[in-house]
């Protein structure tokens, strides 16, 4: 008896196996390419800004654009009044503008709805007070005073060896920050701010209350320009 012939792959089966291997390799390449490209696309487009930041940005821009529209409408009205009213209308507009700007610059006492924040702490620095003032300004504060010292951008809040001073006057804790503006937005900001302060070991007390009429009697003394020219 002769030995049975050794089984060998038939010539027809070899290309079939090769095809299977190639198909699998192709699938692997395809999946890998799709995976790498889709991830690369995400990474490329997300450079710098995440979607949450964009959402906040959209919210801020909507609010900003609403404020700009209101300002434009107000200015258009003033322009129309000046165009039709002559000199007496100009006097009225200018007087109203002067009063408004004096209030903005902190040159006159003011009152209105707002909040009062009280912070009692030891070791807080000028930077902490600057941050608090900026947070409230970003929440739409229209007038601010700390311990009866009027504050606006441009008023020096600095650190001295004896503590924090506002425009040269020492303001010792507890700080009572009186703010006039939209009470909803201000309360939201104050809520966040006081919550954060509670986790600061230097802070003994951080509270706020909403008031229908916050009165700010302190004023800023305007310094004439020495270096600036119109």
């Amino acid at each position: 008896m002769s030995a049975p012939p050794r089984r060998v792959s038939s010539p027809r089966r070899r290309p079939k196996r090769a095809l299977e291997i190639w198909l699998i390799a192709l699938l692997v390449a395809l999946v890998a390419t799709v995976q790498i490209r889709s991830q690369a696309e995400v990474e490329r487009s997300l450079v710098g800004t995440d979607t949450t930041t964009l959402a906040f940005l959209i919210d801020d821009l909507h609010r900003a654009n609403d404020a700009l529209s209101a300002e434009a409408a107000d200015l258009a009205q003033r322009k129309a009044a000046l165009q039709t009213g002559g000199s007496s209308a100009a006097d009225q507009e200018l007087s109203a503008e002067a009063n408004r700007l004096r209030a903005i610059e902190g040159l006159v006492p003011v009152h209105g709805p707002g909040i009062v924040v009280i912070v009692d702490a030891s070791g807080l620095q000028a930077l902490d007070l600057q941050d608090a003032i900026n947070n409230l300004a970003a929440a739409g504060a229209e007038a601010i005073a700390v311990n009866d010292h009027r504050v606006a951008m441009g008023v020096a809040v600095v650190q001295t060896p004896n503590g924090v001073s506002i425009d040269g006057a020492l303001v010792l804790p507890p700080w009572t920050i009186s703010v006039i503006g939209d009470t909803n937005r201000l309360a939201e900001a104050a809520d966040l701010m006081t919550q954060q302060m509670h986790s600061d070991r230097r802070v003994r007390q951080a509270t706020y209350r909403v008031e229908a009429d916050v009165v700010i009697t302190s004023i800023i003394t305007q310094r004439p320009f020495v270096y600036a020219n119109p």
Partner: protein
Amino acid sequence: MARNRLLGILVVAAVALATGFLVAGQVRAQLLTPSNQVARYQALVRSVQDLEKANASSRAKIASLRSDIDGLEGAAAQQSATTRALQNEVADLRAHSGLTTIHGPGVLVDLRNGTPAPDVNGQIGYLINYQDMQDVVNLLFASGGEGVSVGGRRITPLSSFSGSAGQIVIDQGPPLTAPVRVLAVGDRNRMFAALEDPSALPDLRDREVRFQISLAVTGVPDVKLPAYDSSLQIPHVSTP
């Protein structure tokens, strides 16, 4: 032949294993989600861009209206001494509020992001942020600055800074990112000395060393500041 066959099986097994890993990886990475994320992200970016265009257009309109009003007030002032006196008073108040352009000696401060590095305490330390701007502007005003602008945006008594990561939002303007140029008119020597003082701006100084953030100060004989071009309303404030 048996060796070849075994080799073939091993290759197929290895390829199948690799495919399995890749498919599993793909499923975990949610193959479809990234494309949705991209679409959603792009929609958000388009919204931001549209809102920024509207913002720029409104600010240009406000600047134009203020200029028109100024012209009309000037014409009215020609006819009456009372109006002229009022106009002068308002012009001074407007200049102090940042509503008009000013120029004079001052400083120019250029702030640039540093080298990307791992976050420290959840902060992205190598990016210039809104608090850096707030600190620089406060220091300038405390050191003899009479007017300041940041990235072409004039600072007013009601100005505020906000933003996240490397974005700086000032008042109602669109976000700025570094490099940002801060201009200040005022006592040039005092402002320059304050900015060069190593004990001032401690956070920025620290990040200058750790992340190579750049703060460059130049004294300039004549700096021109733009006028504020946004809203300056105080609807909740009353005067007695």
